[in-house]
């Protein structure tokens, strides 16, 4: 199954993403007001969705770790935070570039972009913390706490920034989208989601291998312990 996931999923996701982008860039009509610039949507929105999916997985894994400690959950949390950070950063950059022709500036303190920037800093802190704690069990517990608190913070940040900005400018409302646009967006989103999944699986395997190397049974012990290693009542399975 390893080979299939590794290359089959990658090929599938690249094909779907390429199709979606082709639909978006060549097939779908330009937007009535934004013109061709609107075609940024087919890369920006899928990135944001995929980043959210990754961050949500991170949150679920962190909460689950609090209830049942396991290296698999820890590895899931680590991989999803890192993948989410990469996708979210790309999403923020494309959003800022999109802002230039539409708003006239790269950064307009739009609540969504601002919340996202804060979120990215928070998850950078999460990954830095993981680097700075040696003990695997402590690292897993502490980073779960940080991930949970960071996720709880998101809606609060969003509301406060929106409130803060709303005193200055009226929030623009999302507009209706042509059916061709919807299709191109959907296909691109699925392609991005598959790529995300591929990244997640690859990173998860790495993280799990790292954890297992960290907690591997030392060679100096008698073999009976090594044999019992899998069956012992370890706190962290």
């Amino acid at each position: 199954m390893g080979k299939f996931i590794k290359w089959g999923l990658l090929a599938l996701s690249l094909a779907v993403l390429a199709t979606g982008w082709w639909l978006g860039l060549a097939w779908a009509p330009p937007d009535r007001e934004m013109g061709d610039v609107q075609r940024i949507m087919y890369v920006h929105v899928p990135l944001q969705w995929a980043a959210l999916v990754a961050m949500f997985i991170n949150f679920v894994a962190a909460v689950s770790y609090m209830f049942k400690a396991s290296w698999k959950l820890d590895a899931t949390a680590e991989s999803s935070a890192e993948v989410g950070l990469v996708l979210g950063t790309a999403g923020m950059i494309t959003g800022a570039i999109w802002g230039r022709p539409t708003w006239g500036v790269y950064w307009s303190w739009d609540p969504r972009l601002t919340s996202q920037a804060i979120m990215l800093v928070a998850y950078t802190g999460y990954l830095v913390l993981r680097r700075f704690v040696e003990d695997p069990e402590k690292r897993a517990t502490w980073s779960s706490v940080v991930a949970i608190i960071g996720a709880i913070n998101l809606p609060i940040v969003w509301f406060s920034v929106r409130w803060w900005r709303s005193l200055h400018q009226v929030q623009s409302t999302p507009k209706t989208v042509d059916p061709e646009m919807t299709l191109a967006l959907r296909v691109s989103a699925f392609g991005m989601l598959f790529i995300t999944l591929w990244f997640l699986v690859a990173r998860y395997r790495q993280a799990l291998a790292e954890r297992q190397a960290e907690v591997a049974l030392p060679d100096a012990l008698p073999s009976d312990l090594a044999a019992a290693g899998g069956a012992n009542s370890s706190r962290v399975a």
Partner: protein
Amino acid sequence: MMTLSTQLLGLLAAAAPGQVGSGRIVGGWGYVWACYAITVAMLVLYAVSLWVRRPKAPTDAKE
């Protein structure tokens, strides 16, 4: 949890910025290509970093 997820989705997912002012923006393909190029570059770079950091010793065949 579902509420939070929906909220999160609403928070960033629909982050398609609306337009300001009126009149159709002409051209702007440079911005479009920049976005796609940056995204592709970041995804490729991340894939390369995954390759570089790949586990050195293969895990046990049993697992």
